[in-house]
């Protein structure tokens, strides 16, 4: 059972197991401008492209939100030493609100980079916090996110010494409709092997739009 399948089953089970009246189901579509940089000891390889995807989230009042997201896209070569790749990811996350403006965030994600010569799978566990600072009494929120990835399993690579995801953005809410603009940076520093140090980074600028399909507040 892959982490993605497990997450999907868990989300469906939770949706089915609780009374719909207490929940809110929100669907979000997003598009991201992504840039990937990797240096495996032979210079920085740069590639960029567009990702698209969707996310379903269930709010379990008063403090829990569960989310399942799927992303896919392509990375085109920006440097001659880079390769074109297709990217696909499934992620499940659970957030728990500890303060009106602070959430604990935990999740798992599995991502594949598919190139003509090989496919590389990344599976990670993410733990961190997200702050949501209200503007104008909550109609707009400023976002700050920092997650550490204590477990990252990458095909053919060692566990990175440092793996983190950080982001900042803005979320707008008008009734059941929401929109979000965010910048997210993923950084992976791998240990030195055979005198070569591998560093990898993915940055995305994401625009998303969501709608609460039923239930209470989408947040």
């Amino acid at each position, binding site marked *: 059972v892959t982490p993605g399948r497990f997450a999907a089953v868990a989300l469906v089970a939770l949706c089915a197991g609780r009374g719909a009246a207490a929940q809110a189901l929100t669907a979000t579509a997003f598009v991201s*401008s992504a*840039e990937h*940089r*990797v*240096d495996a000891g032979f210079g*920085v390889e740069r590639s960029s492209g567009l990702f698209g995807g969707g996310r379903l989230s269930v709010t379990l009042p008063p403090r829990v939100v569960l989310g399942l997201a799927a992303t896919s896209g392509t990375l085109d070569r920006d440097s001659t030493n880079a390769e074109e790749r297709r990217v696909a990811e499934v992620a499940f996350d659970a957030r728990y609100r500890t303060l009106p403006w602070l959430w604990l965030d935990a999740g798992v994600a599995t991502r594949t980079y598919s190139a003509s010569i090989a496919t590389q799978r990344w599976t990670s566990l993410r733990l961190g916090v997200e702050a949501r*600072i209200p*503007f*104008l*009494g*909550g109609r*707009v929120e*400023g*976002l*700050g996110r920092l997650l550490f990835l204590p477990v990252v399993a990458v095909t053919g690579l060692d566990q990175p010494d440092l793996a*983190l995801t*950080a*982001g*900042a*953005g*803005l979320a707008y809410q008008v009734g059941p409709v929401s929109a979000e*603009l*965010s*910048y997210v*940076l993923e*950084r992976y*520093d791998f240990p030195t092997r055979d005198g070569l140090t591998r*560093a990898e*980074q993915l*940055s*995305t*600028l994401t625009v998303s739009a969501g709608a609460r399909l039923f239930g209470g507040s989408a947040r």
Partner: protein
Amino acid sequence: VRRGLAALALATALGAPLTAQDTTGDQLARARALYEQLRIEQALPLLREIVAPQWPHEVSTAQRVEAYKYLGAALALARMADSAVVYFRAALERDPFVDLDPVRFTPDQRQALARARRETFAVGAQPVRSGPVDPLTDRVRFTFVTTHAAAVRAEVRTAGGSSGVVVYRSDADGVNEVAWDGLWTDGRLAPPGRYELHIDATSRLRQRRDSAHAFFDLRHDVPSLEDTLPDLAPADLLPERATGSVAAGEIVKGIGVAGGALMISGLLANGALDETRDRAVVVAGAAAVTGLVAYLVRRRHPEIPANVAANTRRREERRAVNEAIRARNAQRIARTVLIVTPAAGIGP
């Protein structure tokens, strides 16, 4: 011997008033005993002495009424009806409740008393019976009497007041009972205080009017009530309008988010990978503009809808709590028991 005489003199001085009162009572008892033995000729002088102005001892109203009553009864037995009526009238004028027990008095005597009633017009009220009265199940009861047929208006007033609640307005003849539900003119229970049953009567037989009063005190026996909560003070409420510092805070937040985006692309990024900052700048710019717009909106519309709604909710909750308290108090007040005690005079 001197000590004995002094003690006798002191005892005589201290005992004098008692002796005087007892003397009237004793004489009345002796006269009644003679009357009961039908020794009318011997009873009459004793009774006349009691009602005579020269009688040296104190005579209560009840004793005087008793003396007149037995004088009337004795004279009726002696077939001196006119004289009997005169004494019966004297008794009725002082106490309109005077009556003759049919078991102990003859029809001629009662006939003479009836005639005296027709010739005399008086109205009287008995002292109010003391005790608790539950207004839900019981009534405050008053007893009054007219010596003959009369138009009667009975009213409960505050002591010294000129108007109140009319409890009886009809013709009456003889002894009557009136019930009062304890409600005042505003439809609520009469407040605690001193009250007066005021009876005005106009004879149907003669051009005569008379009135009577009975004073009583009214108290409420109420279960203890809850106090309602005070209105919310400003300190209990959230500010409903943003201050200048709150508006400035919106700019600070915008700068904070913008700085966060730039810091991520700068400090958190791996310097060896020469991360571009274009994407972070987009978010930083949007955050700065959002902060500025939020600042301007705050300045133009300082109301804080969330706080207004929260305050409204708090006020509504407080109002609901007080409504519940008032409802419980109303239920307790509805269980109020009136405590009635007879009183004399006007002032409390």
